[in-house]
């Protein structure tokens, strides 16, 4: 039998929005490489969540479901806008911390997309493996393996760029 959707209430969504908004925006900015677009993507993502709140199944935490929507909204923005935000723009750090080393940014940008997403959700949102798995629609085992791979790649790249 199909499990009926539990649905989410407006209050539940609003509560998470108000509690975690800076983190949602930071992850979206990391994906998009643009703080202005990140603000818009998060707003769009939450609007979609509000519209589709009745389809929330309750299989996992509501917050993880919202993370999935926000990540997808940011990635959709990335693909839609301005012939998409060029990876070179990402690497040049448009909208990012002024004192950040460009090669450090490049090291992050050069990671495969899934490794970047797992890193962002782990570091910026402090999500556990289960929530990351739900947000990215992958298994918990894959989260661990991807995070390990991302750490290894980042460490190697950082070693190279700071040598």
């Amino acid at each position, binding site marked *: 039998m199909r499990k009926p959707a539990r649905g989410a209430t407006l209050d539940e969504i609003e509560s998470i929005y*108000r509690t975690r*908004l800076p983190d949602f925006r930071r992850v979206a900015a990391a994906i998009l490489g643009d703080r202005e677009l990140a603000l818009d993507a998060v707003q769009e993502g939450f609007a979609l969540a509000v519209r589709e709140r009745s389809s929330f199944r309750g299989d996992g935490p509501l917050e993880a479901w919202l993370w999935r929507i926000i990540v997808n909204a940011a990635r*959709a923005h990335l693909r839609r806008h301005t012939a998409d935000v060029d990876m070179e723009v990402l690497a040049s750090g448009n909208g990012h*911390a002024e004192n950040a080393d460009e090669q450090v940014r490049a090291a992050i940008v050069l990671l495969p997309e899934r490794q970047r997403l797992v890193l962002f959700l782990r570091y*910026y949102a402090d999500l556990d493996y289960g929530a990351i798995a739900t947000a990215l629609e992958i298994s918990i085992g894959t989260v661990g393996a991807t995070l390990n791979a991302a*750490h290894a790649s980042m460490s190697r790249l950082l070693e190279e760029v700071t040598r």
Partner: protein
Amino acid sequence: MSKVDTVGEALALFVTPFDDEPEAWADVLRRASIASDAAPRSRVRRRRRLAALVFAAVALLTLALSPVGGALARGLGDFSAWLTANPGEPASESDQRAFDAENERTWARFPDGLQLRRVIVTEAAGGTFELFGFRSGYSLCLRLTVEGIPSEGASTGCAPLSELRRAEAPALALYLDAGFGHQDVPGTEEGYVPPRASATFGIVADGVSAVALRTSEGPVETIVENNAFLAVTVDPPLGLRTKELTAIGERGERVSVAIAESPFGDYGPQAKPGVAPGPRAVARQVEGGHIGWLVRRESRGESPAEAGIDIERFRLLHEGELRFARVLTPDLQSDRRFVLSIVHVPESKPLPFGMSGDFLCRMVFARDVGGGGCSPLADYFSRGPFEVGTSVGHGGEQYALASGVASDDVARMELYLATGERVAVPLADNVYAVEVARTKFPARLVAYDRQGRVIGVENMAHDPLADSGPRPNADKQRIVKRVVGASGTRGTVRVGPSTAGTRCHRISFENGAGGGGCLPKGLEPQLSLGVLNTGSDSFVTGTVADGTSAIELRFPTGERVVVEVVEGVVAHPLTPAQATSGGPEVAIALDSAGKEVGRQRFRRLPQ
């Protein structure tokens, strides 16, 4: 340069916190079209609101101007049902088990734990057709099974989720003209028998209430349920093909949906002319690339044993000694797997042309697709920092797989599509694979180095299943000769004009072997012959230029055989003795007076 010691430090630098930005819950509700009872608790700064409004205006303008946008603006919706929810109902336990068992048996399998959703069930041709949907990583797939009709199994068509997000139309075909079973009628000379049923399926947006599908024989009734569509044609004529697809909204709005036709027989759809966008030249010349981890024998990915792959059975270059092999999965959530191996060919047993030493062999396995090749390791990247191969599992699938191996010089890759879209290509452990919509060729793959400079460009001129240049005019091809091999293999020779008026020929054998083409008049080579092995028989086949009346084949045994030329085409069976002795050495072209007008040496067959 600042010193960054940890991943955490690097990420802290990458994007600083958003602590100073105000909330905008009321804006969320407005975008969701829900009136807020409460006054907004804080306000977005005016500059931000203006930016959002400008964006909204630009987005609406874009939607209104583009064909896709036009569809969306008319209210046909998008594919969010497939992106954020699960249409349909869970598959039965037996259907799920059957899928899991089948998936377990293949090397290029989907990840474990995929949950099928049944979206359409219908009865036709005495069978029960069930259409299932499932998401796997970055792909959405539909799988059509049938019970009650003996057939070779399910047909599965997939699309990248990114295609759904870009939403070029309110419907997306995933598989055209899948055949199930066979009709109880005699086959054609080439062995073709029409299927008992032919099916086309795909997905639709929320606002699509009907799909109009037109085949080469006319319109076909189409079922639309649970954000999917399915059309089944019972006892179709041989070669029935889907030609047009139109999504229809509840108010009758009609939006044409691009499809890539499936080929039939020897001929594919006509390739679309055009030039792929994107960089055409490299900014930095890269030579002599290599794959460091492979040279160092690092244990990337899995061993063939860990991956359950019988490497000895399927490895390439059996003449050499397998020194190293790893199985790689550039996208962990996909069904694509690569085997990279190093095979050593000793100098004492060189390959043709005296080649020996270490070879890099790569094989790619994907759903319904497998293949590969080997090249000398030292020269693998002599022509560029990456190589590309394209493949399509079945003619009805709408996406081609572009895949290959890249050297360490390549930091990232991008795919440029004819539509202007740019797609990041998954690249890991020096292998990459990306799906290319067959409707979006010509396309271009571009490789960048770590500084973002273009270091490699590969143009993919057309859909791999499409024919470029003139195509045979199907209605005007005539059978001019029939041929039977020593073991009974039958073949036919057809000639006729192309759509451009030039001459075409086709040699077809009943087991599917054959060849042909269309050449502009006057450009035919004097002799273009080869030895074709159909499995049980060998034939000398090919074309000759005007003025050649006959061919004399000369064998190493001293035997000489004169072969007739029919309308410029040669198709001649070899005896077992002629084939096992290595085939002919030389062909002599003779004019009507028996005078030699051309000569061609053959590559010898293995004895």
